[in-house]
């Protein structure tokens, strides 16, 4: 039996300040980048043609080059993130959508400059067929608006928030609401860090990046639950241990699983970043960053927050119990036997049983 990482004994929670420090730093870097980009007149995010619209140029070729060749020609002239879409019922014609603002002319001139690498354009007065020297002709230039207007964006955010509330309620019911809150905070952290990267490196945000962010949310919650599940189980088995120790043990016990799963997903997504081509880069990069931070946040964010929160509640309960020395009316959090040990509150029992 070949085994990585067993019987590890790392004090994860002991390093919580470091972890949270790193996360705060990363989020601040992202925020700083966004603010600087905004202040210097650029956009905080490099929004693609999906979000801000652009110009669509219809070009007719004598010999239509490969989509990739057209895209490369555009990239070499500094037009990035173009959508190249062939028209199938007119095989020599292609739609080129570029994220350039301004009414027609600017986009058209820039695209023409790029397409000239395939040969000159037809003289304005002439048809493509009757000009022996020409390689292509631009037969139409239209401005296009955003696919994803503000409405869609707002709706996407609203729906995702609703989904997070659903997660909060389910984890709250199955574990404790503090667990749910910690998991959701970790998700927010992951999304913010990923968006920070996108702002910092000005990676194009397309509609597909939204899908990648949703994947990230799913992955992060999955990973957090695996750790929490083990904590829940260990609390039942080792009632005398402190939550601090149990959490550390649980992270250590699930560590081999975490490394294998996240490692495999990371490698698969890395393959997509490396070999998946330019168009999918934004999508696959968001996934890659998401895998790393989705895993990291379960250990570094969700667990410390949950432990801190639970400890505060325990402390508050103990104080309340000591001062009244009787169960609070209707209260579930009171412990009837205030001993020096970790009190077995009804809460702890609930967490253990579930």
């Amino acid at each position: 039996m070949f085994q990585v990482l067993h019987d590890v004994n790392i004090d994860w929670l002991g390093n919580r300040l470091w972890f949270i420090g790193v996360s705060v730093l990363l989020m601040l870097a992202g925020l700083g980048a966004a603010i600087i980009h905004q202040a210097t007149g650029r956009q905080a995010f490099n929004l693609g043609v999906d979000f801000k619209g652009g110009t669509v140029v219809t070009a007719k070729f004598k010999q239509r080059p490969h989509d990739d060749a057209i895209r490369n020609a555009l990239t070499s002239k500094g037009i990035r993130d173009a959508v190249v879409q062939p028209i199938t019922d007119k095989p020599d014609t292609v739609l080129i959508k570029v994220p350039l603002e301004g009414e027609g002319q600017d986009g058209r001139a820039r695209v023409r400059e790029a397409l000239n690498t395939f040969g000159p354009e037809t003289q304005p007065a002439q048809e493509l067929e009757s000009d022996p020297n020409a390689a292509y002709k631009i037969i139409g230039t239209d401005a296009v608006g955003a696919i994803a207007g503000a409405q869609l964006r707002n709706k996407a955010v609203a729906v995702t928030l609703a989904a997070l509330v659903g997660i909060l309620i389910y984890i709250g019911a199955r574990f404790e609401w503090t667990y749910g809150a910690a998991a959701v905070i970790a998700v927010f952290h992951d999304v913010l860090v990923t968006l920070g990267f996108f702002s910092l490196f000005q990676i194009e945000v397309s509609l597909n990046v939204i899908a990648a962010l949703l994947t990230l949310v799913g992955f992060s919650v999955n990973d957090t639950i695996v750790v929490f599940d083990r904590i829940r189980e260990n609390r039942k088995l080792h009632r005398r241990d402190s939550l601090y120790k149990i959490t550390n043990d649980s992270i250590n016990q699930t560590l081999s699983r975490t490394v294998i799963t996240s490692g495999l997903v990371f490698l698969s997504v890395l393959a997509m970043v490396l070999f998946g081509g330019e168009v999918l880069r934004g999508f696959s990069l968001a996934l890659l960053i998401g895998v790393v931070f989705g895993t990291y946040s379960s250990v570094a964010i969700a667990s410390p927050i949950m432990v801190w929160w639970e400890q505060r509640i325990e402390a508050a309960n103990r104080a309340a119990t000591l001062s009244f020395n009787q169960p609070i009316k209707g209260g579930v959090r009171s412990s009837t036997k205030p001993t020096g040990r970790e009190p077995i509150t009804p809460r702890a029992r609930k967490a253990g049983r579930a």
Partner: protein
Amino acid sequence: MKKKNLLTRVIIIALVTITGLYLVIGPRHRPHLKDFTWSGIKQTLASNIHLGLDLQGGSHLVMRVKTEEFLKRLTEEDSIAAQNAAKDAGFELKGGRADTGGNTYRVVLELADPSKANEVKDAVQKKVELGDTSVWSYSTSGDQISWTMTGAAQRTLADNATTQALNIIESRINALGITEPTLQTHGAQSSHQILLQMPGVQDPERVKDILKGESRLELVHVVGPPSPSPATTYATEQEAIASLGSNGTVPPNRRVLPYAERMELSADSSKDPNQQKPKQWVVVETPAIIDGSELRNATAVPTQGGRSTDFEINFSLKKSGADKFGAWTGAHINEYMGVVLNGEVKSIAYIKSQIFDSGQITGRFTKQSAEDLALTLRSGALPAPIEYLEERTVGPSLGQDSIRAGVRASVVGLALVVVFMLFYYRGSGVNAVVALILNMILMIAGLIMFGATLTLPGIAGIILTIGMAVDSNVLIFERIREELRSGKTVPSAVDLGFQRAFVTIIDTHVTTVISSLFLFVFGTGPIRGFAVTLVIGLLINLFSAVYVSRTIFIWELSRKEKVESLSI
């Protein structure tokens, strides 16, 4: 006991697998041997899975919102309102009209007494929104006073109409269940064009008709003596106008409309080639009692007592509309009311008793045409008619090369996972790989069964599914190893490993399914595409990663009397 249990499990798995395979290959044609060759599989998948716009391409439609019609109607309505307001305030008018044409939209009133121009203006502006100087510029000349729409206001109003049309078209597309179209404004600012790209649909003409359907609904008072005398109709338009007794003109509070009873109609009646010319005309009061903006819901239902193929549309009104409608119908018992759609009277009925919040549109609708009309009514009326300018078929928006690269990368990633599982978990790794393959087959079957359209966001959902499927196996195997290390026997380690990991797997899967259901129900576009594959995939995964994998373990353990070791 254990053997019997195993047999049941194997039978269930075999049945599910066969059903899955059948859904993938059949039911469109009888499976051949060559379906199981590589190219056969590829072809079957290509013909059975709908691919989205980004992966396969589709139609490219450019349409224009006829905003001039919108401005024209607006001006005409204001003109009528202005004439009524002036008359109500006791001023005599020689005439009034809406001048529309070119880029001019003007409301004109001819006064009997030009010296009262300012009083008329004030009276009109008190009731009609012509006083807004950012929209209308007021002028007088001779006995005429007029309000002309400013150029800036024309542009703003036309732009608003276009945006509104875009939103309505979007909601209609969503209601039709077309997955992930792209919808955007097109052309220069003032061209009022909309570009729609949508993946290949079964009946593009029907979709085009639905998108184009104006669906302007009004409920109007039909002028004439009340029941029991029949509703007053006229054979020609001239006759109807003559009945008004105002020298061949239609007074501002009346309209003459064609009455097209018992006609086949679709959401877009103007395009129907079989349409006969309307035979009758009626005089109705204007403005309408209520219009389509007060609609809460509309559904197609079979006509009661009619032929089984006849359908009608039931509609209900919002609170504000119901109040207005209830008050009006209460005061007009036995009088005739007409349902007007796109400027044509569709049905006339007398009011038996006070009606509050519901009504019917009758006519000889087919099931399809009634459903299409109900859909367009629900999504709201288009502010102006729409015309199609351009129609093309386009290739995938992601580009063929990118798709090929993406597929190659996914295969590399998947191969990595398989190799690692086999290397690290040895014999048990086979379990995981079998479970993964079964998951993929059933997932494709699920996509085909639900007729889902696969897009890149959908593939993101599949990636997360595979990630979680691998995770399920890793969780189980790591747990079994842990139990083995703590000195348990092989059978009890397997039992405990599954039991403990199952709790975790249920929690992770249910959480994700719950959140994806939110995304599925309320999300649109890429969000929904993501949720569909994820929900299908995770439900299947509970079966393949837990049940199937467990069965393989049971089978392995049942082969020997006493199991000393496990390849894990």
